[in-house]
């Protein structure tokens, strides 16, 4: 298929990671996880994962330890708000003073 031409006559996209562009560069605050407080890290087993559940972008990975895909995290702060252990802190990105 010719990858330089879009065959469609109207705008459309299929479900795929990154279809809306690299939304990570919208971020002015980044979530930083303190694994000394994070429940799954502390217990060493699948537990809590409320950040994964509440993330509107689906960028939190429910694994041990929890990781966040910073390519697409918009920095909304919902994970930090929902974390019962207060393990996530929103830290200003450079250039967003």
């Amino acid at each position, binding site marked *: *298929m010719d*990858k330089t*031409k879009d065959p469609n006559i*109207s*705008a*459309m996209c299929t479900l*795929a990671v990154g279809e809306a562009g690299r939304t990570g560069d919208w971020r002015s605050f980044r979530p930083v996880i303190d694994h000394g407080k994070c429940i799954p890290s502390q217990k060493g087993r699948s537990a809590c994962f409320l950040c994964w559940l509440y993330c509107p972008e689906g960028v939190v990975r429910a694994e041990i330890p929890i990781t966040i895909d910073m390519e697409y995290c918009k920095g909304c702060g919902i994970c930090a708000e929902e974390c019962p252990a207060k393990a996530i802190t929103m830290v200003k990105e450079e250039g967003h003073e």
Partner: protein
Amino acid sequence: MSRVEIMTGNQAAALGARLARVQVVAAYPITPQTSLTETLAQLIESGEMQAEYIRVDGEHSALTVCIAASTIGARAFTATSANGLLYMHEQIHWAAGSRLPIVMCCVNRGVGAPWTIFNDQQDSISQRDTGWIQLYCRDNQEIIDTVIQAFRIAETIYCPVMVCYDGFVLSHTLMPVEIPEEEKVDAFLPPYRPHTILDDTNPRTINPVMFADLRANAEGILCDGYMEIRYKLEYALKGALKTIQDVSDEYALVFGRDHGGLIWEYKTSDAEVILTGMGSIATEATIAADILREKGIPAGVVGIRAYRPFPTEALIRALKRARSIHCLEKAVSYGFAGPVYTDLRAALYGSECDAQMQDYITSLGGRDIQPSTIAEVVLNRIKSDAFDGRFREPIWINCRTE
């Protein structure tokens, strides 16, 4: 065998939609369109027409339903007038931007405020820049034929078509109309094949938020940005000039009636004075041209059937021998002049046609105009010694302007 019946313009439009085997109708009643949708409702209720008639709470919803129906592959039709058309405005853009071949009849009526239910063309003219094809009909026969042609044009190039005709003057006036044979219409208009279809086995988002620049999708294809999608719409509309003409020519071969495609001409071969306009005012101008000929003025008419896309080349060819051009208009671009004059003057600028041009605003809100009056104002104008190439203010006919 085709048969001739006496019917109104609205009945002709409804029969055209039935013959086109429209599958979804969604419309909201408004004068003077109402009897069109009433006729369709009766045809569907009685089983004479196999279609879904979806009742809606207003015109915005009517066109939204047609957009949804057309997206999943149904042939969709709606109709409205005046403020109803304006209420659709957002979705009128949406239908064109989505490249959906919806056909809508605009039964032309003046726009409020103040309220008028009577005819002019301000309503469809105010939707000029939405990306819809606009065709203007001059009699009831042309309405039934144009609705059928409109679906063929729309589904060939995937652009919506607005079939415009004058409220009351045509919509409620009885004329003999030859009804095309069903089998011939079926052969002329094959089933609709959508360019995109919603399919749960191949899910996709239609019309996502676009960013300013092109970007690669998951398969690595560099997808169009907003500007490319809009360029494709413009390119399609320009290409529609050929499609409209081709469809009209083929229709003439099959059904024996030629409405002219982009434009039509009356006694232009030796004409130096050309009257022009859209819809029934241009028909009336043919009588005015005859009156002028009786007075020794070689007059003719060039009727504009396709207003968008604007038939620049066809008009230059038709007007190159003209010495003066007189635009009769039922709409105003407030603060400048009539829309036909504006576009025609731009189209002819620098071309081999160097005729003088005058604009006339007439018949707003149904104000009557007689062919003799048209002949008189045109005669006065061409006798005026101030007829130079410069822009002149439009003349408002039959209007107290002091």
